């Protein structure tokens, strides 16, 4: 796999310092962990190999055999059946909307809250926003289905907004924790130089929030991109469904063409896996940041 940081021979990789007193490489443990990666690799391998089989071979019951002959035609069929370009595009749009809304609304709100913590209105607003941490989507699902239909938001636009709404509590929490660690002197001096609160936010605070923007953005993106529940319930027009939801066509009509189904699953999984492998340091430090900050 792509590891951008190759550890120097005798040193442990940065960020993974051994807290024990073992000073030499523990090979048994390394081998044990390598074996444990099979739990990740086996489902991925099966998906990959099934996707390249012929219909006949995919139905023979042996999931672990290599494809023989190699049959890339399943991808073309999956591409048209799921209308891949459309559903992929809609997924991108929904996730982009969710990420932008989450970043914008929660960073602004968190900044206002963090800098006015002594005022009751801002403190109570925080508690109000945190309510959703304990509010699972199923609780509001039925009214939500009706309201989005009434307001014409039973489409990708509405799903993107809802994804952002259910990401808000967590994101505001992360941002306020992070903002507390930014020294207020920076802002005070800018203020003395005549900068308005508005300018201070965009020119000073937003750039300083960089690492937390990445964290919030990654969480918002993954939650939105991989979600099945909300789009499947909210979206009225099945031709506008997102990539994870359209995979359900293989559960009924095309039950026996496993190769086509798996080609489609692979196309649905591959984009995030590939992006993750290239940006893994960034993704991992982003997620870890979120864990440490609250």
């Amino acid at each position: 796999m792509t590891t951008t940081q190759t550890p120097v021979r005798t040193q442990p990789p940065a960020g993974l310092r051994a807290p024990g007193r073992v000073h030499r490489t523990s090979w048994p443990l390394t081998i044990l962990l390598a074996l444990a990666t099979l739990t990740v690799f086996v489902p991925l391998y099966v998906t990959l190999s099934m996707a390249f089989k012929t219909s006949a071979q995919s139905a023979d019951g042996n999931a672990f055999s290599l494809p023989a002959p190699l049959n890339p035609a399943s991808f073309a069929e999956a591409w048209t059946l799921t209308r891949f370009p459309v559903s992929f595009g809609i997924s991108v749009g929904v996730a982009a909307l969710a990420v932008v809304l989450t970043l914008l609304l929660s960073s602004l709100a968190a900044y206002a809250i963090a800098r006015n913590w002594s005022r009751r209105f801002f403190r109570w607003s925080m508690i109000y926003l945190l309510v959703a941490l304990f509010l699972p989507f199923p609780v509001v699902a039925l009214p939500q289905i009706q309201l989005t239909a009434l307001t014409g938001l039973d489409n990708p636009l509405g799903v993107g907004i809802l994804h952002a709404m259910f990401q808000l509590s967590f994101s505001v929490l992360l941002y306020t924790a992070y903002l507390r660690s930014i020294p207020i002197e920076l802002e005070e001096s800018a203020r003395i130089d005549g900068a308005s609160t508005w300018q201070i936010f965009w020119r000073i605070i937003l750039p300083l929030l960089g690492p937390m923007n990445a964290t919030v953005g990654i969480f918002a993106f993954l939650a939105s991109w991989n979600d099945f529940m909300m789009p499947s319930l909210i979206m009225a027009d099945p031709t506008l469904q997102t990539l994870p939801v359209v995979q359900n066509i293989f559960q009924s009509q095309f039950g026996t063409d496993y190769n086509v189904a798996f080609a489609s699953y692979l196309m649905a999984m591959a984009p995030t896996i590939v992006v993750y492998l290239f940006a893994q340091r960034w993704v991992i430090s982003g997620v870890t940041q979120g864990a440490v900050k609250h």
Partner: protein
Amino acid sequence: MTHRTSATTLYRRKSYRRGSYRRERRVDRVYYLFLVPTLLVFTAFVVIPALIGIFYSLTDYVGFGEWSFLGLSNYAALFSDPRILEAYGFTLGFAVVTVVVAQVIALALAVALTRRIRFATTLRTVFVIPMVVSGIVVAYVFNFLFSNSLPAIATAVGFGPLEESILGNPDLAWLSIVIVSAWQTIPGALLVYTAGLTSIPTDLYEASALDGASPWRQFRSVTVPLIAGFILINTILGVKGYLGVYDVIVGLTGGGPGTATSSVAMTIFGGFTGGDYAYQMANATVFLVVTALISVAQIIATRGRAVRL
């Protein structure tokens, strides 16, 4: 919103007493512009739907048309409905089992990954992959493995209990949901634990080793108390997520066989097609209370523990 009234003067003084560095200054109006839009959309898209739902739970509304007040009779019916009670039993049991399984594995992996091993970064990269893939798609893949590959392997080695698909077995189907949910949620917990473990100063281990503590004793007396906060976060977020389980079940069993793996979320969604809208809203309200109570109970319970350790 707040003008110069006696009230604002009052809590300005209070904030002064608190030792806040925010001196005698009026709140910049722009801060309200930053916060209020978020409060409004949040109210419109989250709070109002929740309130509407709670309101309809007190009626006989079927999703459209006329309705009249029923009071609490939906709630009374709920507590004697075997289908609902079974869903709660399944969901709670599933959440408890999965959170234990996922946390134990995640913590074990995190401890192993922070030891002196080779390829630590590469191994971690691999273990985190499940975090970025869609739950429903993963469930479809595992559905195939459970219904085709596992029985084939069991037949080949002659292991009777698994020769039939576990997805079709009312007593075992829940296991498949635990496995896939854990598979999917271990990476997030693993990263949280890795962050926690790397924050522990090395000299604590050195000192306890000098005192003759075994690795297991070190784990119990040094590691666990120092990462108690991380265990708390993981458990609360985990349980909340598992209680709302839906995607994975849709992909694996569809709630079956029969209603053996039907979660609370699935019964609630049934209200939209089943004509028992108001009834399922009562269910949703109870679900909200249960979720909130469990989260609060966990915070109280674990905090007490962290103090004692």
